[in-house]
């Protein structure tokens, strides 16, 4: 996906304080980190904030990254830890507005048709506990292996496999229970 050798050069330059090199790293990974944050948090504004914070935090602590390891895994670990902290904070400071995706993104229509599969999945993801949601996002959005997900979330690989399997079962049940047609109020 990326030119690994270039990436090592960019990281070395970043370590030396060349901020433009870090800017290039941001360009390469911002979408992946944003997707992770959005998937974990289910809140667009928080996801935007934390994507920014993740790159600042990663730059500041770049000396902790070992060049021989996969950079993306380390970066996702930084972002994942920030998301966990934000979710903990949100437990005591909830967002008053309903979850962003209840309204179907930018679509002004509030009726989601039965054939709109992705909207049904979105809402099921919203309702899924984060302990199941996080590994699913890393698996199906960031396309990490079980081993990498285990590293990012600091959990045993077996636990990751179980959670992904159970997470998918919960999603299926959720969608089956409510059917595939969702009507949204105001």
């Amino acid at each position, binding site marked *: 996906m990326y030119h690994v050798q270039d990436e090592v050069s960019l990281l070395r330059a970043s370590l030396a304080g060349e901020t433009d090199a870090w800017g290039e790293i*941001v360009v390469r990974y911002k979408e992946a980190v944003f997707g992770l944050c959005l998937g974990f948090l289910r809140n667009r504004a928080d996801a935007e904030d934390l*994507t920014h914070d993740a790159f600042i935090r990663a730059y500041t602590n770049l000396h902790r990254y070992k060049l021989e390891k996969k950079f993306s895994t380390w970066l996702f670990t930084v972002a994942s830890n920030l998301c966990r902290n934000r979710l903990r904070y949100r437990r005591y400071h909830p967002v008053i507005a309903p979850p962003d995706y209840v309204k179907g993104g930018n679509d002004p229509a509030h009726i989601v048709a039965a054939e709109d599969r*992705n909207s049904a999945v979105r809402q099921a993801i919203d309702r899924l506990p984060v302990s199941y949601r996080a590994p*699913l996002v890393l698996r199906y959005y960031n396309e990490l292996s079980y081993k990498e997900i285990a590293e990012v979330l600091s959990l045993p690989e077996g636990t990751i496999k179980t959670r992904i399997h159970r997470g998918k079962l919960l999603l299926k049940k959720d969608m089956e229970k409510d059917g595939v047609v969702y009507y949204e109020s105001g």
Partner: protein
Amino acid sequence: MRVDNLDQALSETLHQEVQEEAYRIEQLEERVVSEIEGRVPRRGIGDVFRRMLAPSRGARIGQLATVGLTAIIFLTLGVFLSGKIFPSHHAELTPIVSAAANGENQVLFVMPAPGAHSVSVVGNFNGWEATPLTDKNGDGIWTASIPLPDGRYEYAFVVDGKWWGQDPLADGYVHSFGEYNSVRYVGQVGGGA
């Protein structure tokens, strides 16, 4: 909806969500770079040593200079402390002391003080009364040769009325009453003489 396509549905949904909100991260790199401008990532202790041992670069000259300066300070301090803790027992070998005919030692006191108007030496050998040094050829090196019997002497120079207690040619130093005095051993005497 077919739930057996859930893997694909999950992947598509998550990617679609990001695409819809991608405008939020359009200028992210610029915001990040402007925030970290002028900042260098923190360094671990191991990394600091690795960088110092790595091939030299312009940025490392400062580090090497710091190390060099620190070494000089410690060496100077070491010499100073060794003189204080282990004072020389061989003061009779110093070339600034020569034997006089009457059994006393002719001890030379030297003080570089270019531009000074008066330099004198005070010590327990003269009851802390000033003995003047002279600069006959005007090169800024003031000297006085004083006959002294074997013994341990504390003294200081007074340059234009100011106390100068640390003679570079001294065998050691003592700190008393808030000021330094120099110590010199003359003849066959030990540190406690």
